[in-house]
């Protein structure tokens, strides 16, 4: 769908060259929700603006549906931008225009007739649940409603890609949930590819299929959301997870010194709901204490992750791996 190849971006700040992004490679597939997470200043706003060439890369290529966008000039980019919707943190609506006129704006740019504009605008407003507010001005709406107008505006020209620039960061938790479900619904029902940037792992967990973690202008980790959440490799990922309450090292404080083995078990899908611990305990005659655990859903997939300490005789302990393998539970030895 859209590919970034060896992208670097440097700024000239008071005479000094500052690298905002260096050597970034990303491939976003058709129909997925791709999340880019990083702390403020990591380069994620620059990254998302490279996708529709609001920012030009200093080197590297941006390829959208086979067209190399970074080779095009501004007039050539305009019709392509009409097919890439963008939603902003602070909505960026025109305060002087009504809700429906805001939604009509991109349609007018696309040269649609007044009647067709109105019809299409009502369609998208209906989709975001705001058809009753068409005649109001943005300031008369709540933040969540304004963001819905922003989404309707971004969808008006039937884009194939939607860019969300911290779309929920200015909203309260409840409104964030409703906007995330709306984005998820759009992705599912319209098959729209979504790229979003955020600093919140919760946003990634709830709606993204794949994620890239960026730090100091570089992609430090990327992959399926489930894998990245369950087996974070880079310390930035781990600390971002810890900030949203997913602490991967918490078990250390609970450790019973001296005996047994400590393992991290990860279940995905149906395995997450099966009674695994009692099975292991019964079959091998081991005592099992749970040091840490989390069970939940990551983008609709149930998962469970437990850190257990198994105590018992050596023979049984040695048979543990075999049993886990036969139950198809992925496991990782944490301490010998």
């Amino acid at each position, binding site marked *: 769908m859209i590919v970034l190849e060896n992208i670097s971006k440097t700024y000239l700040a008071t005479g000094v060259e500052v690298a905002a992004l260096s050597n970034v490679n990303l491939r976003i597939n058709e129909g997925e929700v791709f999340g880019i997470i990083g702390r403020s200043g990591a380069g994620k706003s620059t990254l998302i603006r490279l996708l*529709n060439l*609001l920012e030009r890369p200093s080197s590297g290529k941006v390829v959208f549906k086979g067209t190399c966008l970074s080779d095009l000039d*501004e*007039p050539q*980019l*305009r*019709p*392509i*931008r*009409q097919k*890439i919707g*963008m939603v*902003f943190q*602070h909505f*960026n*609506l*025109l*305060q*002087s*225009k009504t809700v429906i006129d805001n939604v009509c*704006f*991109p349609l*007018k*740019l*696309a040269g649609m007739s007044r009647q067709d504009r109105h019809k299409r605008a009502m369609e998208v407003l209906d989709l975001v649940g705001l058809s009753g507010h068409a005649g109001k*001005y943005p*300031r*008369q709406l709540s933040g969540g409603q304004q963001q819905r107008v922003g989404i309707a*505006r971004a969808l008006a*020209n039937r884009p194939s890609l939607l*860019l969300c620039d911290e779309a929920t960061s200015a909203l309260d938790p409840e409104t964030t949930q409703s906007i995330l479900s709306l984005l998820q619904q759009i992705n599912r029902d319209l098959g729209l590819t979504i790229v979003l940037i955020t600093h919140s792992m919760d946003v990634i967990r709830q709606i993204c299929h794949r994620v890239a973690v960026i730090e100091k202008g570089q992609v430090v980790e990327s992959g399926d959301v489930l894998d990245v959440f369950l087996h974070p490799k880079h310390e930035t990922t781990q600390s971002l997870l810890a900030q949203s309450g997913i602490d991967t090292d918490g078990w250390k404080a609970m450790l019973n010194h001296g005996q047994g083995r400590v393992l991290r078990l990860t279940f995905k899908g149906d395995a997450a709901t099966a009674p695994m611990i009692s099975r292991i305990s019964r079959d091998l005659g081991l005592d099992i204490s749970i040091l840490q655990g989390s069970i939940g859903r990551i983008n609709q997939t149930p998962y469970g992750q437990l850190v257990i300490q198994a105590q018992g005789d050596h023979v049984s302990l040695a048979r543990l791996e075999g049993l886990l393998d036969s139950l198809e539970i992925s496991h990782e030895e944490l301490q010998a």
Partner: protein
Amino acid sequence: MNWSNMDWLLILEATFDTLLMTGISLAFAVLIGLPLGVVLFLTGPRQLMSTPWVYQSLSLLVNVLRSVPFLILLIVMIPLTRVLAGTSLGVAGAIPPLVASAAPFFARLVENALKELDPGVIEASRSMGASSMQTVLMALLPEARTGIVAAIVVTAIMLVGYSAMSGVIGGGGLGDLAVRFGYQRYQTDVMVLTVLILVVMVQVMQVLGDRLVARLNHRRV
């Protein structure tokens, strides 16, 4: 004050002349100042069409015209005024210097009104595939309209004051009347009356302007 002393027809005529000078100069000032202000904004640092040499030279021109005292501008411009208006006297003769003084002032106000806008509006407009021209016409000017209307009111009021000053070199209108009767013939009451009329004029402009701004302003509900 001796009201019977007044030549009402003359005062009425002078009031009308002042309004005419203000109105025509305002129209030209807006016609020239609005595009000039937009260009100043667009070519300014870190803006859509940032072009340092254009910005610097326009900015210098605006500053020069704004720093010349109006009375001096009035006199310096006499040859040019004769070419443009055919005369340097009366209502017509006052208009070129009034425009030369008000247009750069208004342009600066427009530039500032545009600078006050959230840069996110420009970014959103670009992201939807708008050209710079479309961004200006469809997004920036409508967003800045309350600021621009307020700028027109300020400029109009400035023009009322300046048009009175042009009376010194025979510009016509209330200022001319005040100078000729009040100053040269010691008819203080005529001068007082012209001042009163000017005060009322300015007051009415301000109130109407404020009302219009309040009506246009959907930014505060």
